[in-house]
Every structure is written in structure tokens, then in C-alpha cells.
């Protein structure tokens, strides 16, 4: 069947956003484990940039609970569960073999939590997400489905880069990729956001970042 239900389309979109949020944020935090050996990390600034509650006692508490606390709605473990939750209801669309990589990523989060050296098992979480990306790109025949996931991942990556002020020199190129993918989907973009993104360059000021962030977040209404 060519058409997706509205709820499936929504699930595909959020699957893309959550897996990208998990992998990009883990990559970002990767360096902080190293920084903590010699000094302190500015986690309150991180929380502010992501607009999440800064409820942590210290660096160590942040690095553990922000990553692993399944009862914390902002944690990466919650993001991982949401990623799997969206994937589970799409089994007949993405396939069991592809879905298995999301199961493995969540299992990887659980085993990393139990490790006294979590950075090593967290590497496996990123590996499983990379495997998931390769698997869905290769195994899903439906171009619309593939590109909805990719578009959502693109929006999430752009959003994180702009919020965190990270890889700002890649913003224009990420927007270019997003536009190409969007044209291969049934997604209906917001005309206003589209205009802002199409005329964008790599941002240099906080105002430019904010304008692009708003456009990316409002590009699709889900």
C-alpha cells in the first residue's frame, strides 16, 4: 500500500528525531567524559541551551542521571525508550531486522548503566544506531518512508547544532540535505519556515541561530 496512516507518519517522524537526538547528544557528551578527568563541565549551560530542567547535584550526577535515569523525562535513556517505542509500532513497515538494532541500542544503554566505565558500552549504542541507519536505508523499499525518517533526523540534527552552537559551519550543508530529502516525501512543510531555510547561510550571531532554529522546529507540524 502506498499511503501511510497519519499516526504511522507521525511515528516515523519521531523515530527519526529520537534516534538522531540519542546519537548526536551521545557524541557531544563523549568529550565531556574526558574533560571531567581534568576539570569541570558546564552542564547548567548545556541544560539551558536544550531548555531542560537543571536538576543535577554536580558533574558526576549530571553525567549519570542525564544519560541513564529512566525516570527523568529529559534523560537520554528516556529518549532511547521513546525511539524504541516509536520503532516497535512500525515493525511491519521498517522490518524486524531493522527494528532489532533499536532493541540492541536500548539494551546497550541498560548494560552501559551497569558498567563502571560507561563510555565503552555507550560506543556500542552509537554503533547500533549507525547500524539502524544503514539497515533502514538499505532494507526499506519505500522511498517516502526512508526519507521521512531521514528528514526528521535532519531536523533534529539541525536543531541540536543550532541550540548547542556546535558544528555551525555545517548548518548550510545540513539544510541542503534536508531540502533534498523533503522533496522525496509526502511531508507538507510550512511555507514560512521553508523560505527561511532556503535562504539560510551558516549562522554567525545568536539571532541568526534562533531564527533558523525556529524555522527548523516549525518546518513540519507533527
Amino acid at each position, binding site marked *: 500500500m502506498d499511503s501511510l496512516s497519519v499516526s504511522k507518519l507521525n511515528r516515523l517522524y519521531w523515530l527519526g528525531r529520537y534516534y538522531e537526538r540519542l546519537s548526536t547528544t551521545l557524541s557531544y557528551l563523549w568529550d565531556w567524559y574526558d574533560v571531567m578527568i581534568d576539570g569541570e563541565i558546564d552542564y547548567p549551560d548545556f541544560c539551558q541551551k536544550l531548555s531542560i530542567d537543571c536538576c543535577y547535584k554536580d558533574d558526576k550526577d549530571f553525567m549519570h542521571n542525564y544519560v541513564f535515569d529512566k525516570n527523568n523525562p529529559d534523560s537520554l535513556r528516556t529518549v532511547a525508550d521513546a525511539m524504541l517505542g516509536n520503532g516497535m509500532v512500525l515493525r*511491519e513497515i521498517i522490518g524486524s531486522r531493522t527494528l*532489532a538494532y533499536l532493541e*540492541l541500542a536500548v539494551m546497550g544503554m541498560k548494560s552501559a548503566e551497569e558498567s563502571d566505565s560507561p563510555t565503552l558500552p555507550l560506543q556500542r549504542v552509537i554503533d547500533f544506531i549507525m547500524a539502524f541507519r544503514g539497515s533502514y536505508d538499505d532494507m526499506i523499499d519505500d522511498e517516502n518512508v526512508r526519507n521521512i525518517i531521514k528528514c526528521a533526523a535532519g531536523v533534529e540534527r539541525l536543531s541540536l547544532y543550532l541550540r548547542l552552537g556546535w558544528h555551525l559551519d555545517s548548518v548550510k550543508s545540513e539544510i541542503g540535505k534536508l531540502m533534498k530529502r523533503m522533496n522525496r516525501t509526502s511531508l507538507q512543510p510550512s511555507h514560512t519556515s521553508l523560505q527561511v531555510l532556503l535562504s539560510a547561510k551558516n549562522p554567525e550571531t545568536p539571532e541568526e541561530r534562533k531564527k533558523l532554529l525556529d524555522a527548523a522546529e516549525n518546518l513540519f507540524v507533527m
Partner: protein
Amino acid sequence: MKTLLAHTKEINEQLARYGVKFGIYKDGTFNERLFPFDPVPRQIPEKDYEVLEKGLIQRVTALNKFIYDIYHDKKIVRDGVVPEEFVYRSPGYLAQCEGITPSKDVYSHISGIDLVEGKNNEWYILEDNLRIPSGASYPLIARTLCRRCSPETFKRYRVRDNRNYGALLKRTMDYVNTGGINVIFTPGRYNAAYFEHSYLAEQAGAVLAESNDLFVENQTLYYRTSRDPVKVGAVYRRVSDEYMDPLCFEPSSLIGIPNLMDAYRAGNVAVMNAPGNGVADDKGIYYFVPKMVKYYLGEDAILKNAPTYLPYYEEDRKYTLDNIHRLVIKDVAEAGGYGVVFGENLTQEQREDLKNTILNAPRRFIAQEVIDFKDLPILDNGETVERKADLRAFVLSGENVQVWPSGLTRFSRNPDSFVVNSSQGGGFKDTWIVCQ
């Protein structure tokens, strides 16, 4: 076989990788558990299976005829073979289904028949599940993983392939389809059998849908898409009768599809299994199934029921009360291993209480002899131990009535228990039909 057994841990890890879980609600909280798999298969020689197969086809054929009869002519009641109290007071009987003829006259498209094998090598039917029997997906995926883990085992043993279940299900759906897509209708992600719903949708090439994906207009069921709605021709619903359509059954249901029964009644969609089937898998009706076989098919039942007594009948009531200490008493309204009481486990006071309850509501209970059924070997921390196990056989009714050459073998992990249900902590095995 040694290599297969040596890989128990790896096979269970593979099952976890594919999300082979079942959900359980305890104290109002939803938890998902892995369904423990034991790699020692139940082996059924092909010649024994042939008898089972004939018996199961015969039984399901008679049950389908019974359901048609109950919702149309009611000859079996008029002829006094089944007392009307057992039909019309059954919670599974739905007056709303009176006079409805489903597509191609099939009511029980997927029947899950629970059996045990006695120590005398004879099979006994424990119960018929004609509403939404679950479990086929577990041995289906386990077989694939076992073959991957130990190909040499499957080279050595000639085992009937069971990996065609998705194709059988698709064929069954296609046969009754009234024109449109095939849909598996699930209550959602937090249903106990959600893994199965999603896996079978993938295997059968059907669309997995929840209630908000589906709607009825002009007595036709549609799948709601981001473009035009798409007509549904067959819906394999995994939602209980009472929650299926809030405008026809339970009005508070949020997981149903308003007016689904209108579309079904108009013949515009096949609903699998048909609503109202519960009238035939009620524990009280079970007693009458061999009589149904004789009545509708003119044959003796090939497969036996467990010896069963109906306290409704005076003679049976007296026998039940006199022998309660060695019988198993089942509440006909319960399922999933609940409402089952072994007389030998009760104190004298509890037995007296139960006797009084039976006397006050004899229609509510059946009593059965405790069958001394075969234990099966399972691996428990590397040791082989014997545990009670049953078999759920799956019978698919489409153009033909066909038995899936496999089945779900469930076992108790508790050495003192006869209760094998997954919700009660049991595990599962693959079921091999072994060719000579």
C-alpha cells in the same frame, strides 16, 4: 541436538534482540517480560500428528457449524443436544450477532486448541480458543533462530517446516476479504500480545492499525491515511468482542471502532475471528463439543475431551461434590489460568466453601479429572528437569481447514504446578512434527 541445547543463552539473547516479549499488568503497572524459551523441542512423530491433524480439523469444522447454527437456526438447541442455558447465559453469546453471516460463512478463522498428552500417549483437548488466541508468533520466530544457531540439528532431524505461518494467515485473510486491504487491528503498544500483532502483520504483509487509524463510513471500514482513505476488506482484530465497537458493545471502550459492526453486518468487511465466537469456547460448552461433532458431522470425535462433569446436571453435581478433593474445578467465566482450583490443594474448610458456591451457581463451574499428563524435559540452569507442558495447536479456516504443522508448547517453570500460562511465569518451546 547438543549444539542446539548448548546455545540456549544465545537463542534467548536473539529473541530479546527481536523484542520477543509479552506484557503483563501487575498492580496497575505495565511491564514487559521476555518469554523464556527452552530449546528442547516437543517432538511429535508424523504418524501421531496425522491423527491430531484429522481430529483438530474435525473439531474446528464442527465448532464453525455450531456458531453458524447458534446465530441462525439454533437446531442444536431445539433438538436438545445443547441446553439453551449454556448458550444464552454464556457471556460469549452476543445477541447483536444474531442473523449475521460472515464472509464465506467462516467464524473461527484462527482457532487455538489447547491439548495435553496423557501418560497413556493419548491426546486430550483442554480448551478451545476461538476468539483471539495468541502464541503462534513465538515458535515461528524461535524456529528461525534455532535453525540459525544449530543448522546441523535441522540437517539431522527431518522437521516439518513451520515458517509458512505468515503465508497461511495471508491466504486465510485473502479468502474472506471482501475487497480492500488486510489489516491487523491491535489495541495498541501496551497490549500483552503486542509483539505478536506487529510480527504477524510483518509476516502476513498486512497493515497494523489501531482504532484511530480506522473509521467506518457508509457501512464500510476505511484505513485513514495522509491521502485518501483506503477500504479495508479483512480485519484480523486482536481486540476483545466487548471493546470492538463502542456503539454496539461496551460504550466506554476507547480502543474500538465505532460502527464496525454495521460494516460487518452489511457484509462489507470480514472480521476475523467473528464476533460472538465466545459462545463456542465457553468452558461450559466445551463439554458438548464431542456431541456437536456427532450432531453436525455424523462422526465420532477423534480427539477426546478431558473427562468433564457439569454440576448443572444432578448426577454430575453429586459426583463433583463427592470427589472434589481430587478434581480440578474451573470457573467458566475466567481465562488465562485464573479461576482454576485443584481440590487436593484446598483445606477442608475451603472445600466446603467451594461446594456451597457450586451448589448456589452450578452453571458457573465445570469439574475435570486431573489428567496425569506427560512431563516434558526442560533445561533449568544446565540441568534437565521434567515439567508439565501443554500444546496450543493453531487451525486456520479459509478455503480449507488447515492445521499449522507446529504449535506453541508452554511449560510450567514451577515443579509443583500444572499452570503453564505465560502470565503465570511459564516458558515456551518449539513444537516439531518429526518425519520418519
